[in-house]
């Protein structure tokens, strides 16, 4: 389970800190960073669609 923290250090104002399984993540507030998108949109899909449209794949 990933938990997030907003750093109080003003020199780290550009990042979000996350903790998960003993790893410290420094996530830049960059819209193109997928971890930042995951922070902003935790419910967004994390994988490709499962349902196969057979007419398009067969």
């Amino acid at each position, binding site marked *: 389970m990933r938990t997030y923290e907003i750093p109080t*250090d003003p020199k780290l104002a550009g990042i979000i800190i996350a903790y998960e399984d003993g790893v410290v993540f*420094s996530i830049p507030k960059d819209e193109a960073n997928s971890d930042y998108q995951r922070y902003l949109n935790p419910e967004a899909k994390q994988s490709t*669609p499962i349902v196969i449209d057979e007419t398009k794949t067969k």
Partner: protein
Amino acid sequence: MATSPIYSWPEPDNTDLVKNGALAIRTLGNAIDTTMGTMVAKTVVDAKGDLIAGTAADTVNRLAVGNNGETLVADSSTSTGLRYQSNFAAGKNAVINGDLGVWQRGTTFSVAGTNYTADRFRVVAAGATVSRQNFTAGTAPVAGYEGQYYFNQLNTANNQNYDTSIRLENARTFAGQTVTLSFWARSTAGAQPLNVAIYQSFGTGGSPSSDVAATYVSGSGSPYTPTASWVRYTFTYTMPSVSGKTFGTNNDSYLILRLFQYTTTATNTSIDIWGVQLEAGSVATAFQTATGTIQGELGACQRYFQQIVNGANQNIAVAWNYSSSYAIGIMSLPVVMRTAPTIAVTSGTDYYTFERNGGLDNVNAFFGAANTNPNNTITLRNSSEVSGTAGQAGFFFSNNASSNISLSAEL
């Protein structure tokens, strides 16, 4: 009777009687007619560059010249057995790490969720082990390309969805073109029918928000069921046009190459993959890596992920005491990354050390900040365990076998 020097048509001798001339001319004409009937008429060609190609025994047809820069390749599916195609001597293959040579994150992974494993290979699984396997010398599936490693995924959970894919930056890639995805696969245990697909994803805020599937044209079919032996599977698609689509503003659109997806009803399915290639055209040509060199493949992978530290006693960064209780280190990255990366630091007691002024400060972790545009440097900071005097210089190094620092700019 005399004959002509090349085609041996019958000709009258000089001493023949004139009264036999008509018959001689007729005989000669018939012989010429017979010869001409075996020849190709110049009207077969219509334009500059046209070629006359055989379509069967004693049968020819016109092959129109290709576009500028295209090369002629053999293709048994066409009537002439030939086809012009675009030539990508370098960069033909859009798939980075298609030969599974780069494994920066490690060589064995227990996947329960979503994990990157081999570089660029993204695995979604409820329970799986992914590992790097070695080809026994001389047993790689392609003659003339001696692969060293291949990808193995052992799926162990029942009634779960498995999805292994590669994301290619920029959904504009091959838009509106015919492409062929190819790779070698085998299944030495619990073989399952596997779905394959290609999707366009238009990025954060892009439209449509759902992924757009490419249209399957021909090939090995979806699903395909690998056998116990290495077989090259090929899948030709028509990529959708991006006309009328909207790309997100974050430059994070991509193609999804789904190598296999299935929902299992059995456990312990083993799937091996090697030699992944996506190229323009309707034919899978000889495999080659995206860059053609070992360093090129590593560098291409490092645009998305960089393993900075993995183990003890590894140099990390030049550092200094910003204050008595705050140390900062800075490092330049070997490759500019796709975007400002996430810095992942495995934490633990005394996992890292700040050496400065004849002394050592052991620290547990770092926080980091990445440069943005260009995404070419990072800083590492600690204000929890360091001491010293402002202005003192030194360097950070790793101090534990479990020390690990990586950078991710994955899609």
